[in-house]
């Protein structure tokens, strides 16, 4: 069996985030978003502390496959401390990356770049985008 293709998906840094998720937990009295992927049962509970247009803190809890949980971990890592519009910009870059489009690589993507391989596994794209959708919804809620 050839697992070469799989190695593009299950990069070491992804498995590291899965095993040792960053920003796991919950922030009290904050913007809260619960989302799930109805086709597979993956779910995320995301809490954001947004003050003066800046994401001061982001934590997540949830259940799901390695791709969805690693993506959530990386997402919280990258948006923490960033202005809201910048967080949304990362979300756009990530979405482009998943769709296999050209994406803005002028910014430092950090660990997110490791998720590039997901684009080649169409059945798994929804796993990777779940937490990002939750983040967009949270920022949306907070600005209302």
């Amino acid at each position: 069996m050839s697992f070469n293709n799989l190695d593009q998906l299950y990069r070491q840094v992804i498995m590291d985030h899965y095993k040792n998720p960053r920003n796991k937990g919950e922030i009290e009295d904050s913007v809260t978003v619960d989302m799930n992927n109805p086709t597979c049962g993956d779910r995320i509970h995301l809490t954001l502390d947004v003050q003066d247009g800046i994401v001061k803190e982001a934590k997540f809890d949830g259940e799901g496959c390695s791709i969805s949980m690693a993506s959530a971990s990386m997402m919280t890592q990258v948006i923490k401390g960033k202005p809201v519009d910048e967080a949304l910009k990362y979300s756009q870059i990530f979405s482009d990356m998943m769709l296999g489009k050209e994406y803005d690589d002028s910014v430092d993507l950090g660990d997110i770049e490791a998720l590039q391989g997901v684009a080649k596994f169409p059945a798994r794209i929804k796993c990777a985008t779940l937490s990002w959708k939750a983040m967009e919804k949270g920022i949306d809620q907070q600005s209302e």
Partner: protein
Amino acid sequence: MNIQEIRRQFPILDQEVNGQPLVYLDSAATSQKPLSVIRALDEYYKGYNSNVHRGVHTLGTRATDGYEGAREKVRKFINAASSEEVIFMRGTTTAINTVAQSYGADNVKEGDEIVITHMEHHSNIIPWQQLAKRTGATLKYVPLQEDGTLSLDDVRETITANTKIVSIMMVSNVLGTMNPIKEITQIAHEHGAVMMVDGAQAAPHMKVDVQDLDCDFFAFSGHKMAGPTGIGVLYGKKKHLNAMEPVEFGGEMIDFVGLQDSTWKELPWKFEGGTPIIAGAIGLGAAIDFLNEIGLDEIEKYEHHLAAYAMEKMSEIDGLTIYGPKDPGQRAGLVTFNLDDVHPHDLATVLDADGIAIRAGHHCAQPLMKWLDVSSTARASFYLYNTEEDIDRLVNGLVKTKEYFSDVF
């Protein structure tokens, strides 16, 4: 049963996926189609496509004969007393919804009970949830035994004089449990309730005799039994169907149409509003011919054998949990499982890279997942074209998956 000969009837199986020969183990989601079914659809569209029950022209007559001929094949297949009791619908989901919206609306009121079980598919939960909400009735669940079976004592305890409808799956799409429908039907009738059977996972795999079961309604889908998608059947006892109001109104199902009022055709057409699923029904008829030629008893026996073989081989894998009855004789041809802490999605992706197609997720049974205390599971399901070699490939793939993720989990 000559499996190699059967496999030749399914050209889709003869292909490589990700550089490996395909092993298709997802027939509980949808089965593959034999050449005879594909040919029947092709012949219909090439030779006699026409609307039914209206035109006087020759093609119209041929299409009508094909469509009504398929109904008679279905009647024999489930041993209904009359072809008037066989209604073509889109699938099991539509059939259950029709009973809930028509029979349910007329017969269920506040304070009544509807009884289902903890192992049901969403399509046999939500129509009843909605009916209960609309009418103020209570939706009750028969609990499951430790091994994922039903106990008749629990059934007796759950069904009461207030129960109006009992609706239970004949075979579980997750646990593989085969439920004692005949006995449950008897209990339902003793309390004056009607019995609806979700036969989606039963009709493709075993002989069904609706008169022997004595159930009031029975639903199944064509695409899980070697037929095309978009066609299914609602069987109902004539006395119920005659008393029920149609759910869909329009062409095809009417008798006289006035400005303010209309009357309906007799059974079964009063429930088949609009141009019916002609090609689908003809394809389903061809699928029934195909299954009959092999024999449903033979198919059931062979699938029990595959399930027993799979359970034996799979339980040798360290860290693999199998859900449902332990005794292979008590279960249909599918095995639902989890492997260590590997998420079923990751598992399915790795197996797919090895050409093996399985299902991962909640299998449209979220309440059952909750009962099993898992968020999702993996499932390998078998049909008459699967072989021991397919199962060996699966087991080999599972071992490799374990190795692949060994440094992570």
